[in-house]
């Protein structure tokens, strides 16, 4: 619940959000809300086949329809100088794919664009798109990565033999093998982390307009990172110089990763606007979102976790097959490798780990980062396996975890999979969660319930996340084709009002509030004196955008650095005005004053004005009061915590009800607890949905069977409980704010917590594992099979 707080005490307060008034009155401005004079509308013709040769396209009837401006094919774009959409993360020996905004000759997944119609009205464009006749020669397709690896499987790209895009490994294989050979107990199983579809409630949209007089192209697009869009689309795809290309990402209705990437449709509208001499807009229909938004997850993993006689983990070996879809999406190679394999130590001391990953192409929608991106896959794998191990070892799942935690004195902790954890203290979060849920009492209730056919389950998940992407030098050495710093400009106006230009992007995270809290506190001004600008390459100098829970830790620190520069310059100017030594100046409560003489002071506004009047400046000082900083973090940050789900399973139908959900998180220092809690709530809902309802299903021919909200189970309010939350605070030493990051923690933690709870409920049937999503049909089948066995 929001509170109001006195100025100077804003950091740490649940200030209610400054962006909300426009949203609750319908005055938000999302991309599809923007219409320019003369706007035309694009509608895409899409492949109904997962794999087909395009033998002919006849658009005569479409072109003849009144109001139709143009029909373009993949060949038209290539002839018009549009290049392939590149991959932004290169692994050693990675085989990249030639991904065209509109397919040329061959379509490789259901929904891939094969032509675009542009017309004066959206309905007219849809009418004309229906009239475009495409002749296809259907080819054999493969949707499952395991199938795609089989000899003789249909090839997605002829130049990628065996559909194997990359093989990647991390860790000490020999040491891991030896430890497993010598272990007292080895838990082995295969687990599936199913494919998910992001479903941000705002469908993707883009609007492009070319100014012939200035030769400037403006693109409004649903993007989490407009500068990245500008760089990649400008420099690589369209060949437009950055200074002639402005990308604006206005209000964005949720991203969850899916709006990081460069998509075909925005390339097409940006190219076509110049061709037809009018603004072009495209807004996805939800069925298009299902087919074309980058999907997430889709791993099959073989896991071996080895324990000594004392129940301590001695080794972990993981072999994963990751489905990448039909093309490499922007960051696809990084997700199942550096954002996954590196997290496989979890919160545990594991002396030997080895992980190998095969990235495989299939005739399905491209797969890329979805909330958590690699880290949920790692956490689910570990936490599910810990529960299987606890059952096998006869240990309490909470106790087994506690026994294996990295102790607090071991930080910074070097894992066996490359990362160095910044700080951590895992026992208090676990203890608090157990206390909140009433663990012992619940176990008793569970035992009692089982005697009369009531199946309660308790699921624990102790997670870690790597946030704050990331040291540029490190990610560069690992294949990233971009630096992952963040920039911020703080501009103090002559009246002492402040505009902050941040390269982070808010699409629900509340930066306009949290960053203003930071600025107001550090400059001693009020929230109303601060404006936060984001999402426009024409206003914000540089930026890398928002993903990987990086905005607070990285974007916030860049702002903090600029604020320090402002204060330093202010001190020197105030010292000059007060005829004092700069080293004697202090800044507090919005005043620069001489140490020990608080009356010898100049207010922040006075100093701001003086900086612009420049009537009297110290020697060598330039007029003006603004500062730009680039922050490149020294390390990731590592939030952690314990989540516990309590469920009841109706074994007659297989239906699961989530009765309670307890979350204790440690995300380091917090600027706005209300907003952080909100991030966790939403994450828990998404992770719970992966455990119970959501899953993209393709049939063998590559048709998406879960292609609408009629089939794909995005949870509604009546499917979820209220959440019981608390926090512990272990500041990160990595950044001066001590922030770790909170955007993905809930998603990462909740999938295993809920899955473990369901499988715990089914313990009386001897069930130790069911692959997620734990739909009623799957649970019922597992119970039936178990009854059949016994």
């Amino acid at each position, binding site marked *: *619940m*929001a509170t109001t707080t006195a100025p100077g005490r804003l950091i740490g307060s*649940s200030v*209610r*959000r400054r*962006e*909300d*008034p426009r*949203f*609750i*009155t*319908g*005055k*938000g*401005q*999302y991309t*599809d*809300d923007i*219409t320019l004079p003369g706007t035309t509308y694009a509608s895409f013709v899409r492949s109904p086949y997962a794999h087909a040769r395009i033998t002919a396209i006849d658009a005569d009837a479409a072109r003849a329809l009144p109001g139709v401006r143009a029909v373009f094919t993949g060949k038209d774009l290539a002839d018009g100088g549009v290049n392939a959409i590149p991959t932004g993360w290169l692994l050693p020996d990675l085989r990249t794919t030639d991904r065209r905004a509109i397919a040329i000759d061959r379509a490789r997944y259901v929904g891939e664009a094969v032509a675009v119609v542009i017309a004066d009205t959206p*309905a007219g464009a849809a009418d004309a798109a229906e009239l475009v006749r495409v002749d296809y020669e259907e080819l054999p397709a493969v949707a499952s990565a395991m199938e795609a690896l089989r000899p003789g499987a249909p090839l997605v790209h002829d130049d990628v033999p065996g559909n194997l895009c990359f093989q990647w490994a991390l860790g000490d294989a020999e040491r891991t093998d030896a430890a497993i050979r010598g272990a007292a107990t080895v838990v082995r199983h295969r687990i599936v982390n199913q494919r998910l579809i992001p*479903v*941000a*409630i*705002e*469908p993707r949209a883009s609007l492009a307009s070319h100014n012939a007089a200035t030769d400037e192209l403006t693109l409004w697009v649903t993007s989490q990172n407009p500068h990245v869009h500008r760089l990649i689309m400008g420099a690589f795809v369209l060949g437009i110089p950055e200074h002639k290309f402005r990308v604006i990402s206005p*209000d*964005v*209705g*949720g991203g*969850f990763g899916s709006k990081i990437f460069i998509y075909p449709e925005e390339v097409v509208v940006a190219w076509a606007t110049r061709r037809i001499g009018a603004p072009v807009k495209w*807004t996805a*229909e*939800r*069925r298009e979102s299902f087919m074309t938004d980058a999907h997430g997850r889709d791993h099959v993993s073989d896991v071996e976790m080895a324990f000594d006689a004392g129940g301590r983990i001695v080794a972990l070996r993981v072999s994963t097959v990751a489905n990448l879809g039909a093309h490499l999406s922007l960051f696809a190679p990084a997700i199942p490798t550096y954002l996954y394999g590196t997290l496989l130590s979890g919160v545990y001391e594991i002396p030997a780990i080895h992980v190998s990953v095969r990235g495989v192409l299939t005739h399905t929608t491209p797969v890329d980062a979805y909330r958590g991106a690699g880290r949920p896959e790692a956490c689910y794998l570990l936490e599910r396996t810990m529960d299987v191990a606890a059952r096998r070892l006869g240990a309490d799942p909470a106790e087994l975890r506690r026994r294996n935690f990295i102790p607090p004195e071991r930080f910074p902790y070097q894992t066996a999979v490359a990362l160095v954890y910044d700080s951590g203290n895992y026992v208090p979060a676990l203890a608090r969660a157990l206390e909140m849920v009433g663990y012992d009492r619940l176990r008793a209730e569970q035992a009692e319930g089982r005697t009369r056919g009531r199946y309660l389950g308790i699921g624990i998940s102790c997670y870690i996340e790597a946030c704050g992407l990331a040291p540029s030098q490190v990610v560069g050495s690992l294949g990233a084709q971009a630096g992952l710093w963040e920039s911020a400009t703080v501009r103090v106006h002559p009246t002492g009002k402040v505009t902050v230009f941040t390269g982070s992007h808010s*699409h*629900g*995270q*509340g930066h306009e509030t949290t960053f203003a809290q930071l600025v107001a506190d550090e400059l001693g001004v009020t929230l109303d004196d601060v404006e936060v600008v984001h999402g426009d390459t024409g206003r914000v100098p540089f930026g890398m955008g928002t993903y990987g829970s990086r905005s607070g830790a990285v974007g916030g620190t860049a702002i903090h650095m600029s604020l320090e520069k402002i204060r330093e310059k202010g001190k020197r100017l105030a010292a000059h005005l007060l005829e004092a030594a700069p080293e004697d100046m202090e800044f507090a409560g919005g005043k620069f004053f001489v140490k020990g003489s608080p009356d010898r002071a100049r207010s922040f506004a006075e100093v701001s004005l003086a900086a612009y009047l420049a009537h009297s400046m110290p020697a060598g000082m330039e007029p003006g009061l603004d500062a730009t900083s680039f922050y490149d973090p020294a390390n990731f940050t590592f939030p952690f915590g314990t989540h516990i789900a309590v469920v009841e399973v109706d074994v007659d139908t297989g239906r699961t009800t989530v009765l309670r959900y307890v979350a204790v998180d440690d995300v380091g220092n917090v600027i706005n607890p*209300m*907003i952080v*809690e*909100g*991030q966790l*709530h*939403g*994450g*828990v*809902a*998404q992770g719970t949905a992966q455990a119970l309802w959501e899953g993209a299903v393709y049939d063998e021919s590559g048709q998406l069977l879960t292609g*609408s*909200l*009629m089939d794909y189970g*995005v949870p*509604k*309010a*009546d499917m*979820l409980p*209220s*959440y019981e939350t608390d926090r512990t605070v272990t500041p990160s030493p990595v950044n001066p704010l001590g922030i770790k990051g909170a955007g993905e923690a*809930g998603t990462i933690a909740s999938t295993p917590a809920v899955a473990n709870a369901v499988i715990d409920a089914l313990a009386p049937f001897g069930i130790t594992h069911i692959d997620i999503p734990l739909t009623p049909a799957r649970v019922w089948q597992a119970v039936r099979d178990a009854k059949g066995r016994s």
Partner: protein
Amino acid sequence: MTRIALTVNGTRHEHQVEPRTLLVHHLRDTLALTGTHVGCDTSQCGACTVLLDGRPVKSCTVFAVQADGGEVTTIEGLARDGRLHPLQEGFWQAHGLQCGFCTPGMIMAAYGLLRDTPNPTEEEIRAGLDGNLCRCTGYHNIVKAVQLAAAAMGVPADRAALSGGGQDAASTSSPATAATR
């Protein structure tokens, strides 16, 4: 084309529309009321929820011609005389929104819920909002927002604001008689 008359947020509008025009497109494209959003094709997400003759409907599943003669309230028409409606206040105060895209529809659906059930339990709120999807909040704070609004509207003066005059009277007003053929 068919001529229709709609009273939207208290103002009467007459327009020629193609019969296939959905109410949501009429509101967004013709009347420039872009607070009502489109989030799906299949009537699941509820982002397009508006009040038609006082009751929430999904404006993506109503043709503008069907609404002819009716009264429509959108999110833009909820605040009165510069004062936010208690539901708007509740969503703001309880952090019942993040990206804001589902919010207008969610608030209009909650309006319908509180009209029928002024003091809902948590379970009733969750059930009553089952026509709306939110991907950001996990619903926790939406439930709280509606509870706050219900409590605020428990005050007699504010109750009047919800169930009294204005466009709410539309539910009992007779449809206009503009011919459409």
